[in-house]
């Protein structure tokens, strides 16, 4: 009887508001994902939780939508010649190990400091990683917008590529050769981060750009392969624990499959560094969002004392900032697509005019 009641509490009642919210957030998350190779997950999981979905069900249902979305996105970008399949698979191999390490760390922290401690760890990881990596990505995007269209290989990557440490692997699509040993830390950290904050791509994509030396376009595309493989593995685990709410997954998928393809199409219209601009912007805003959630966990651990209404207000702003991050990403992506499409139409009209002269 108790078990049945527990089962009932696992799955929320669906209203039209819930459905619309999940569909729209799924669409925008997919759009951003298709464009920068990752994203959406960090809004969807807290988004579902704010609708009353238990944390485990939210994470599981999100993951169950993530791998097919990544598959569709990866396939689309593969047809555009942007995916380096070998790079994705090699990275996914070490990422899978990184996920296991990440899970073990989470379990240890949960055991020692409970749920508040775990939430604090996750939020601090968010803030630290996103601020450092996000600022660098943004700075790099701003720097490269000042030079010509050419996108040179970053210095660190060039140095690492020149080190001959067998086994050396050649990645055909990415057009680079590098020692396997340098791909391992990037993969491990990607998996570790994925297990911690659900978005491995925030380390994976910059890692592939700055450490391995693949272009922004190829890194973000190949990240979808990693996301597919990691997502599938994670989903199997969660599904076996009976945590997937298929209704939530399908609604989110309905939106995100539309979005991811649009995002993938968008990458063919914009300059290379637009991917970095979108990524950097989202990362920095989300970092602020998570920073605002930190006081709540510090208070729960009795590390600080805080006014309850102030904490609720900060949590509200934190969630709003997160949605804002996604929305801004979507606006930049769609805006640059519309701009590029208009320019293309004008060029076509001009050339057609001259043909008839």
């Amino acid at each position, binding site marked *: 009887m108790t078990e049945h009641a527990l*089962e009932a509490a*696992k*799955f929320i009642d*669906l209203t039209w508001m819930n459905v619309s919210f999940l569909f729209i957030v799924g669409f925008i998350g997919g759009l951003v994902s298709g464009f920068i190779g990752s994203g959406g997950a960090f809004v969807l999981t807290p988004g579902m939780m704010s609708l009353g979905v238990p944390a485990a069900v939210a994470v599981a249902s999100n993951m*169950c*939508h993530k*791998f*097919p*979305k990544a*598959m*569709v996105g990866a396939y*689309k970008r593969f047809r*555009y*010649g*942007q995916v380096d399949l070998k790079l994705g698979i090699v990275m996914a191999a070490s990422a899978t190990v990184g996920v296991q390490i990440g899970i073990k760390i989470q379990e240890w922290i949960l055991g020692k400091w409970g749920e508040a401690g775990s939430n604090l760890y996750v939020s601090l990881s968010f803030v630290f990683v996103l601020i450092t990596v996000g600022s660098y990505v943004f700075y790099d995007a701003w720097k490269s917008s000042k030079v010509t269209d*050419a*996108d*040179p*290989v970053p210095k660190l990557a060039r140095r690492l590529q020149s080190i001959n440490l067998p086994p050396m692997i050649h990645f055909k*699509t990415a*057009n680079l050769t590098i020692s396997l040993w340098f791909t391992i830390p990037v993969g491990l950290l990607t998996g570790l981060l994925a297990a911690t904050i659900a978005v491995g791509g925030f380390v994976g994509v910059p890692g592939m750009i700055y450490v391995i030396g693949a*272009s922004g*376009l*190829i890194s973000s595309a190949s990240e979808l392969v990693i996301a597919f493989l990691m997502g599938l593995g994670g*989903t*199997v685990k969660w*599904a*076996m*624990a*009976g*945590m*997937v*709410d*298929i*209704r939530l*997954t*399908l609604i989110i*998928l*309905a939106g995100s*499959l*539309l979005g991811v*393809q*649009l995002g*993938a*199409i968008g990458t*063919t*219209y914009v300059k290379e560094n637009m991917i970095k601009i979108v990524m950097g912007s989202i990362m920095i805003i989300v970092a602020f969002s998570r920073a605002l959630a930190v006081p709540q966990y510090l208070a729960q651990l009795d590390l600080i004392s805080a006014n309850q209404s102030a904490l609720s207000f900060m949590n509200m702003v934190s969630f709003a900032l997160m949605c804002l991050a996604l929305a801004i990403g979507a606006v930049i992506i769609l805006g640059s697509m519309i701009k*590029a499409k208009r320019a*293309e139409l004008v060029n076509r009209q001009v050339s057609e005019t001259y043909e008839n002269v």
Partner: protein
Amino acid sequence: MSANSETKKKKAVLRTVMYGAVSAAMLAAVFSHSDALTSLFSLGGIYAALPIATVFAFSFAHGAFASNLWSALGIEATTKKTATRPAESVPRPAQRPRARLRMSA
């Protein structure tokens, strides 16, 4: 050329409707039995295959619907951009100034 793109668009519209129907049918099937299916799909263990298979099947149908929808709306990838990076220029050996024959006027 224009006739070709007209046919392509018509095909995309047809495929959008077709895959859209399949996708809608799948969603209808799941949501009309949502309570029963949600419980069944969360039994765990070997039943894990059910949500995973469903999600794969739905993604094929809905993914194809989405792809054709964008094509039918005229939103397609542009072929102008290439994914390759410009090749790094090989540093040339320093040129020694060659001896030149000077002719005085």
